[in-house]
């Protein structure tokens, strides 16, 4: 459907301008030639201000996430696919099947259109790969200097099948704690590009949509107690959250936690603890002891869970501490993170 734009958008040399957010012809062109063209689904093609969709029966799940990552492009991904995976995962961690996404963009004046297209196309690929279409969206433009190039907010909806009750408050003493794979990959991939901290590694972000893995896990153990993806703050933060929500303690074994050798080395360089480094394609699961082996088998059978491992157990503890048996032989507390982990000299 031609809208009569006199010139096609210049994706090679063009930049985002204030008019692209003004609601006028320029914005319509950006929406049509970039967003609708890339995401390409029936709901979007209708060009309404909202999407009307079919939702199967079951409990509705809604999740939203804003993505402000800098740099925009990093080994293994970019802010685009990150924003799709992040929200798909938030929905999936309720045990729900993600159905639709909405995407809001805040663009900084001056952002090269080439970069924007790269990001949107990456989002479209991620969305298609996950089978979760972006059915509606919004675009605003802010003045140069007010943003980091682009901020993306994605909201996702999904439906929980009957018989599934996953919640952070369901961990019980005696339960087993599992992770779906190696810890710390995403955070280290990002750090490798930050100003003043560059070094050459082969680490890539692990950004991925986990709903397929979750479905495979629930098929074998529908009674999983807890699921959460350890994003900002890493595994340590997620375990502390779950411990506090459930009012229990957790004990993990340091040498049971899968960490890639290079991630360990990179963390040594910077004085960081891999337990606190972000992941974007991994999950933590807590289940009854009797279900643990079957759950581990289901995870390992899935491409995103090949390195899954049992890392510890849930105990009674009124203080809700997370403790770790170190490879060295002692035991220590794994506490909440204090602010951002910053590389240190001492």
């Amino acid at each position, binding site marked *: 459907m031609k809208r009569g734009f006199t010139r096609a958008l210049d994706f090679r040399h063009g930049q985002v301008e204030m008019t692209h957010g003004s609601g006028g012809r320029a914005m319509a062109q950006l929406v049509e030639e970039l967003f609708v063209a890339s995401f390409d689904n029936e709901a979007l093609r209708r060009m309404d201000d909202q999407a009307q969709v079919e939702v199967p029966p079951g409990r509705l799940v809604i999740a939203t996430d804003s993505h402000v990552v800098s740099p925009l492009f990093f080994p293994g991904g970019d802010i685009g696919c990150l924003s799709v995976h992040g929200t798909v995962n938030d929905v999936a961690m309720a045990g729900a099947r993600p159905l639709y996404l909405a995407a809001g963009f805040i663009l900084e004046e001056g952002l090269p259109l080439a970069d924007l297209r790269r990001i949107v196309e990456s989002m479209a690929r991620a969305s298609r790969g996950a089978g979760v279409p972006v059915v509606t969206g919004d675009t605003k433009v802010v003045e140069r200097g007010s943003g980091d190039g682009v901020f993306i907010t994605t909201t996702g909806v999904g439906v929980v099948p009957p018989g599934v009750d996953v919640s952070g408050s369901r961990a019980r003493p005696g339960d087993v704690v599992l992770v779906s794979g190696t810890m710390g990959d995403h955070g280290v991939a990002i750090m490798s590009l930050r100003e003043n901290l560059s070094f050459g*590694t082969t680490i890539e972000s692990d950004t991925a949509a986990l709903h397929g893995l979750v479905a495979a896990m629930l098929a074998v153990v529908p009674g999983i107690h807890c699921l959460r993806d350890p994003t900002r703050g890493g595994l340590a933060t997620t375990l502390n959250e779950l411990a506090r929500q459930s009012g229990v303690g957790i004990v993990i074994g340091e040498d049971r936690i899968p960490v890639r050798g*290079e991630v360990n080395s990179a963390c040594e360089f910077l004085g960081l603890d891999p337990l606190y480094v972000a992941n974007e394609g991994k999950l933590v699961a807590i289940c009854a002891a009797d279900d643990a082996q079957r759950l581990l088998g289901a995870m390992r059978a899935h491409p995103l869970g090949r390195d899954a491992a049992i890392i510890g157990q849930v105990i009674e503890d009124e203080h809700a501490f997370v403790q770790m048996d170190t490879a060295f032989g002692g035991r220590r507390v794994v506490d909440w993170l204090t602010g951002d982990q910053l590389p240190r000299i001492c």
Partner: protein
Amino acid sequence: MCLALPVRVVELKGGDMAVVDLGGVRKEISLALVDGVTTGDYVILHVGYALTRLDPAEAERTLATFAAAGIDAPASA
């Protein structure tokens, strides 16, 4: 003391700079504080500078001391 690591020198570059490796991760650092370093040497790295060379023979000796601690330690008086 402060965060410092034993890293392996893999490449010498001009101007006292070198590329070092720790478990597969590489970084460019300065050798300006140490003389006579060649590729294959291990150095102690701190805030982007090598502080000193690591002596592999002494490292082995120290490890052997740990192992011997359980065996030939004298009993207390």
